[in-house]
């Protein structure tokens, strides 16, 4: 009874959202005579209808109502409550609803904001509502989370232990806020094109949203990478896997976009390119979420199992891409202002790095699509090795670092390269010395690695010193603080990536209890092995102590868990984090009684790597928040 009632309520709420979306899109069709409610009131209804239906879905998962297909297939009564909750978006239908929830949330927030004119706001909300209409229709017809069955199932099927992880519970919502944030940027761009108002004002409206979306996207990707690092136990943090690449591609284009928005705000130029990037970023975000979720990227064959959904997304993508680029072609003449910048201005530097980002994007795109193409055309399965990405991207990154150092030193007008060089002489000399000493100390011989380390060091120091003003007694934070934190973070990140690649070590031992294992300067004292019975699994745990130069650095307890329902084996890595190096141990399923296989890893600079990533995210957030003040300051000059 209850289930049936909830089924109807939820579906009615979705239909309510459809209706409000139609009402909201009226501004696109010049129907203005409906004034019963204001835009923000209707947006509020739109938002609430989805929010309540999302809460209903959460309620169904928490109360384990197996009359609903989705709960039956993806949940289980014995799951801990937090994983019942994350089970809501751990499947296709639920994640679609979450996606739509964020879409209406952004629409609602924008309808409340006061930064834009009434007309501009009306059209933006209309465009956004048109998209909401499309997605809610898709949800209702092809991917309804509220379908019920007539069986009386006692328990659900979804108890996959590997997916029961706190990081995996928050990773999708964060990533989605990033992806969906770009839907608003897309709507803003369409509005800008329609009204031919792509100018400094437009950039000022768009800037906080685009930086916020970018920060969330960065954080989402980083969380996924961190999960892979400690859960998969392969010692890496990035595998150039198609699913990872699908999230990296919108990030690369979004990174180019945030810089263009800044240029547009400061110099009122690069209008067309900004529009192209905004459309591209959103298209890649759409492709990223849905092609991954429908399984197209893993294999062309899974596509066939779900033809309706895949086809809908492809049609939707096609409509969005073709209509927005058509609009762009019609309007690009009107929005472009003649740009009069000097070749040695900051614009040039940013433009060059835009092209470099797009080059990396092309490398990733080709590497991801090539296997799909050969499978479709030649029926030949193949994989692209990680070597391809390393070889193709390294030279681009070196150029990228160079221009990342140079551009902020250039002024927006004309600048003299010699003067910049002489201003930077202390930084250059000190970085050269540090690089030289590290090279000697660590026996580095590879020129590429030395060059990247050198450039990263300059980037870190020059970025930090440009964001802070050192007066004799106090430190003043300048308005470009966000940028300087993010750029320094990228330098730190690159430094860690290179050193990690060079100095990582791993080895495998067939170890007996009582033996001492060695890797580099570390001694692993294998003390004991224990079997334990837990609530829903049995485990085998190994205990090891880590020593370096006779000093005890900590205890390892890697574990293998045997779940019975469904029969699954998972291994828990055990990591000791030190300031400059992670040491970690993975254990194998025991094949015989006497010994056990252990894999030992030394991963240097992992903490530094995550520190760099956190600084990049922080820089984005700071810039999103500081935006308004900065615009007012700049409006004067």
């Amino acid at each position, binding site marked *: 009874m209850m289930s049936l009632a909830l089924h109807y309520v939820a579906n009615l709420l979705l239909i309510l959202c459809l209706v409000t979306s139609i009402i909201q899109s009226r501004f696109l069709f010049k129907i203005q005579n409906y004034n019963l409610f204001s835009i923000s009131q209707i947006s509020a209804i739109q938002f609430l209808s989805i929010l309540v239906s999302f809460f209903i879905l959460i309620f169904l998962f928490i109360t384990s109502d197996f009359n609903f297909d989705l709960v039956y297939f993806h949940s289980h009564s014995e799951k801990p409550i937090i994983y019942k909750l994350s089970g809501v978006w751990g499947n296709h239908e639920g994640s679609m609803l979450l996606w739509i929830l964020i879409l209406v949330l952004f629409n609602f927030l924008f309808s409340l904001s006061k930064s834009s004119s009434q007309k501009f706001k009306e059209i933006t909300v209309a465009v956004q509502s048109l998209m909401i209409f499309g997605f809610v229709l898709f949800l209702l017809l092809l991917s309804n989370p509220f379908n019920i069955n007539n069986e009386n199932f006692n328990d659900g099927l979804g108890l*996959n232990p*590997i*997916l029961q992880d706190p990081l995996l519970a928050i990773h999708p919502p964060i990533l989605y806020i990033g992806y969906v944030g770009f839907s608003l940027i897309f709507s803003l761009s369409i509005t800008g094109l329609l009204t031919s108002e792509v100018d400094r004002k437009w950039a000022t409206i768009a800037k906080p949203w685009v930086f916020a979306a970018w920060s969330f996207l960065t954080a989402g990707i980083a969380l996924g990478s961190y999960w892979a690092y400690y859960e998969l136990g392969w010692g890496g943090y990035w595998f150039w896997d198609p699913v990872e690449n699908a999230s990296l591609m919108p990030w690369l284009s979004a990174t180019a976009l945030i810089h263009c928005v800044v240029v547009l705000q400061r110099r009122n130029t690069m209008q067309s390119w900004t529009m192209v990037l905004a459309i591209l970023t959103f298209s890649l975000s759409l492709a990223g979420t849905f092609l991954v979720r429908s399984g197209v990227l*893993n*294999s062309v*064959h*899974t596509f066939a199992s779900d033809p309706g959904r895949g086809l809908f997304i492809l049609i939707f993508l096609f409509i969005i891409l073709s209509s927005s680029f058509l609009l762009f072609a019609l309007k690009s003449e009107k929005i472009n202002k003649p740009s009069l910048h000097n070749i040695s201005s900051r614009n040039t530097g940013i433009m060059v790095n835009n092209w470099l980002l797009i*080059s990396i994007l*092309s*490398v990733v795109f*080709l*590497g991801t699509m*090539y*296997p799909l193409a050969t499978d479709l055309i030649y029926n*030949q*399965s*193949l*994989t*692209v*090795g990680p*070597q*391809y990405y390393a*070889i*193709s991207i390294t030279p681009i990154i070196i150029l990228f670092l160079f221009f990342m150092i140079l551009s902020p030193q250039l002024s927006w007008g004309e600048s003299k390269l010699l003067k910049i060089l002489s201003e930077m002489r202390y930084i250059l000399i000190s970085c050269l010395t540090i690089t030289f000493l590290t090279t000697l100390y660590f026996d580095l011989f590879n020129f590429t690695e030395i060059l990247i380390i050198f450039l990263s060091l300059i980037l870190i120091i020059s970025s930090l010193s440009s964001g802070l003003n050192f007066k004799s007694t106090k430190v003043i934070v300048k308005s470009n603080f966000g940028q300087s934190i993010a750029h320094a973070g990228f330098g730190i990140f690159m430094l860690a990536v290179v050193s990690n690649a060079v100095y990582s070590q791993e080895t*495998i*031992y*067939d170890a007996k209890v009582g033996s001492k294992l060695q890797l580099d300067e570390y001694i692993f004292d294998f003390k004991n092995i224990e079997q334990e019975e837990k609530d829903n699994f049995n485990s085998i745990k190994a205990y090891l102590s880590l020593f370096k130069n006779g000093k005890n650095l900590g205890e390892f307890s890697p574990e*293998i868990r045997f779940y019975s329902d*469904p*029969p*699954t*084996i*998972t*291994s828990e890595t055990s990591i000791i984090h030190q300031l400059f190096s992670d040491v970690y141990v*993975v254990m*194998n*399923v025991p*094949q*015989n009684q006497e*010994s056990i*296989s252990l*894999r030992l890893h030394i991963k240097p600079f992992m903490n530094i790597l995550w520190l760099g990533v956190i600084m990049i995210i922080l820089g984005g957030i700071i810039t999103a928040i500081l935006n308004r003040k900065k615009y007012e300051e700049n409006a004067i000059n």
Partner: protein
Amino acid sequence: MTDTVKKRLIKFLVSLIIFGIAILIIVYNLRDNIVYFYSPSEIIENNQTGSQIVRLGGLVESESVVSDGDSIFHFNITDGQEQISVKYQGILPNLFAEEKGVVVEGIYMNDGRFIANKVLAKHDENYMPPEVIKSLKETGKWQE
């Protein structure tokens, strides 16, 4: 042709050429780094021996897994028609089991053995690598 149109045309052509060269370099590099996937029948048919790294996928033959200590494992991969004996030193993934799908990466030797340096694992106990499904379908061993 007006001056602005001419300028634009030149700009367009130059960027097209640069872009084309970049794509050529990337694709050239790509071809050097692809790893082909074969089923046991295909690898025997193509006689893909030598130094090139390839992937081999199929089912782990039942009662074929032997361990001789020091984390060295021997097992057979089959697609129902042919089987290849695989040698691997390292840690087997948790989901590795007899009569389950597996993909290994390594070198196919002249003597017909396969020396693997990687055994690939996926997250789900029901997961079957799509390439393996495809090759099993081709030999008629696939059951829905």
